[in-house]
């Protein structure tokens, strides 16, 4: 009997410890302005990096679609080069490297530049594969009705290409959003960084757990959506 009571007590103490350390409302109330500030920065980063990356990727892919040999070599080299660098390495290189070049930019700009280089290469590869998946006939049909090359690309090829690679696009967007957390390493005050700062202030990891939960709330819907989409496309192959 005593043994059981002891074990129950130990368990409840462990639970208490868990709640105190990970789900401490008092701490959360104190630091939530910090977390919100971080969240705002994270969202801001996403709203900048994702559209910029998509735009950069489109430029790369459309340029590739002209099939100019030397240009395509260059584009593939760019894509593969930046697909080989860990984004964190790129970030640190750009962030600490730019000042050495005598270029003084706000840290946000350095972060954006690093992410853009990386992100555009991934989006570029996805769009490129999408465009390649559309038969030459589509473009020829469009050209035969008098559309210009660019018009054929924008109105005929790209819409189909995007549909074909939609899961990959969404999947990459998910990755890009996750990348923004790397900016914490160079002290950009985004969500993860603020979680760490708040943990330091309160000597309690609740803010960190809260930051993780915010990421989860933000990204889980995308993950679910992806599962559905991927299942559909893979079944078609």
């Amino acid at each position: 009997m005593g043994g059981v009571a002891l074990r129950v007590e130990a368990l409840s103490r462990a639970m208490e410890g868990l709640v105190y350390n990970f789900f401490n409302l008092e701490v959360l109330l104190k630091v939530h302005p910090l977390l919100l500030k971080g969240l705002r920065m994270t969202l801001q980063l996403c709203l900048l990096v994702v559209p910029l990356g998509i735009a950069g990727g489109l430029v790369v892919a459309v340029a590739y679609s002209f099939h100019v040999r030397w240009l395509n070599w260059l584009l593939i080299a760019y894509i593969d080069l930046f697909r080989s660098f860990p984004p964190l390495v790129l970030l640190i290189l750009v962030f600490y490297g730019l000042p050495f070049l005598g270029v003084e930019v706000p840290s946000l700009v350095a972060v954006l530049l690093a992410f853009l280089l990386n992100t555009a290469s991934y989006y570029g590869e996805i769009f490129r594969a999408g465009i390649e998946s559309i038969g030459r006939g589509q473009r020829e049909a469009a050209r035969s009705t008098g559309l210009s090359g660019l018009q054929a690309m924008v109105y005929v090829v790209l819409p189909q290409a995007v549909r074909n690679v939609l899961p990959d696009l969404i999947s990459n967007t998910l990755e890009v959003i996750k990348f923004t957390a790397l900016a914490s390493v160079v002290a950009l005050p985004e969500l993860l960084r603020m979680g760490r700062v708040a943990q330091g202030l309160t000597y309690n990891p609740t803010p960190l757990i809260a930051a993780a939960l915010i990421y989860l709330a933000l990204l889980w819907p995308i993950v679910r959506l992806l599962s559905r989409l991927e299942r559909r496309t893979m079944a078609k192959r």
Partner: protein
Amino acid sequence: MDRIAANFFDLDVMAKYLPSIIDGVWVTIHLAVFIVLAGIALGFVLAVARAFQIRPVNWLIVLVVDVFRALPPIVIVIVFYFALPFVGISMSGFVVAWLSLTLVLASFAEEIFWTGILSVDRGQWEAARSTGLGFLQTLRDVVLPQAVRLTIPPLTNRTIVITKSTAIASVVAVPEILTHASAAQAFSANTTPLTMAAIAYLVIFLPLVVLSRWVESRFGWKR
């Protein structure tokens, strides 16, 4: 131009820090290999477990897999390293990085394998079962060989992305490439060690990226 040479390609600095960068390369490779082996194996096991369609088990698998696909890996690493000790779970930086990224890779791999299993035509199951093969035999001899083939391109790409993110281990002081490079950069007040790190990653990962292109053209899309 001089400025670039002096700050990014300083030969003296390069010579001085080359050994430590190479040490880092070995750590990165070790970490990556352990992650790939454990992650893919675990993902495979989870996908096969999911094929049994036991409700509560499947819910659990989906939940775990979703969480590790949704969270940024650096968040997972930091939570494991800086939050778990508060509830009495302490692990070294290497173990934290290995465990975090293994769970991430396993989650993506599970999803990829599972999608592969689902995409094998129902007729294949039925044909096999109609000749008297059992569930496990059908899974092993008929479904998985077809599913795995389908999963090779996405799995290759995902594996590269995740092993690349071993650079994150630098935030928990694992002595891998980036850690050595950052330290060297601080000591020498010169960006050259970071350039070296970038080149080191290039040497490791560029062949893999090129390989993934080949894999894509070999296994992708056709059937």
